[in-house]
């Protein structure tokens, strides 16, 4: 039998889980967009507005076939960095940090997050806090290093990753 869900608009929590975004972020985006309903319920169009207004992107359609581990994380990292460069997120263009991981299961995200943190500490990524949370962009001076790592898997960036 069909449930009540057929008729009910979604709760903030449901939308947050669907979008892999903290509920408070959803609230901030809806307030900025002027579309927060007084009953805190969202219909499909509101969810889409959150996605667009918040600049949410899902970069991973599925998890890798191999189990999480160092090699898988390394492969994921190169693929991620290739996506970053292909989308042109070099300073001053920035991307929401959570976009980098959306679509991956937590276990894969964990390794990738550690690697991205190492790149932030190593000055490859520049980070800044804004209303939409942490934003990342590639430091222009490190773009060539990053390309070398993405294409050939070597260079200074590979050392940063090794050290973490």
């Amino acid at each position, binding site marked *: *039998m*069909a*449930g*009540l869900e*057929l*008729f*009910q*608009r979604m*709760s*903030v*929590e449901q939308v*947050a*889980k669907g979008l892999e975004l*903290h*509920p*408070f972020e959803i*609230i*901030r985006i*809806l*307030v*900025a967009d002027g579309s*927060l309903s*007084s*009953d*805190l*319920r969202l219909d499909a169009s509101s969810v889409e507005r959150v996605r667009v207004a918040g600049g949410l992107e899902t970069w991973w359609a599925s998890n890798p076939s191999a189990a999480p581990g160092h090699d898988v994380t390394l492969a994921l990292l190169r693929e991620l960095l290739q996506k970053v460069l292909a989308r042109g997120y070099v300073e001053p263009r920035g991307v929401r940090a959570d976009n980098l991981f959306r679509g991956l299961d937590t276990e894969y995200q964990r390794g990738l997050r550690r690697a991205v943190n190492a790149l932030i500490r190593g000055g490859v990524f520049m980070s800044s*806090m*804004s*209303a939409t*949370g942490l934003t990342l962009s590639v430091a222009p001076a490190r773009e060539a290093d990053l390309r070398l790592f993405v294409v050939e898997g070597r260079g200074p960036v590979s050392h940063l990753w090794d050290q973490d």
Partner: protein
Amino acid sequence: MSELANRPAVIAVLEEIAQWKSRADAEFNGSMADVQREEGALRRSIEEAQRQLVALAARRSELRDKQEMVALGAETRERAALRQGLADDRGIVEGRAALLEAALGAQERALRNMLRDPEVAGAVEEYEKFVEVEASLAVLPSGYRRAILDHHDKVRRRLEPVIAASNAGPPNLGLANVGVGVLFAVDPAEGVPEALVAVLPVPFAVCRDWAERREDLSSRFAYRVVAAISRLLTAVGAGEAPIQYTDVAGCLAVQVWLGDCDLQGDINERALEEIEALREEAAELSAAGIELYGLWVRAAMLADEEE
């Protein structure tokens, strides 16, 4: 010396001068004695006054120490009272959250019973089928499409009470209203604020463990205040200010860095207005008999007490 029959005039003058000097000397000696007496008295007064000044300085120091202790005591008591108030308010919100969840559960069970009615269940099934094929309607011939849409309209009208009940507001718990506070502070307290903090009487878990815990009244309380703070920031020209969520005495605290913003308007007044507006807007808080208020305190009162 023999007496002169006629004393020279000069001698009389000299004698007169000697008498005059003698009188002046006597007068001088008398006056000097007065001066010395007065001087002595004054010196004694000064010494007494100095003793009194020393005593007063000691008394002043004692009073200041005492006052400092009073200030420290007041600060400790104020901090403890605010912490206790937060804990009490949090207890109220959590207690009423449990009651509201129970009432919502009963509301949902009643709705599910409605769905068990064969006539309603049939209509729901038709409605569901329509939702499944809705996206592909465009490719159907217009006459056929029109017929399906007309039929769906009828089904929808039959289900209107169910749809309305499914999206009805929370049931009123019928409890006495109780005031629950959100604490606000800015730092520094004087001049242009660089940071804003709001502490909510809800567990920090609504933020940290949101994915594991069920959304409840505490969560929605937090959503409301986060929304109010977002509106407040936009209103004072700080819409882009970064926000962090932290744990203050087990409660959720919203911290905003304002140091990079050019603030316009009175943040204090505006914050209270936004909280007041929530009283009208937040149906779930009204249903649970919770009356929200905002209270400005000194930032130091929200920090942990220094050892």
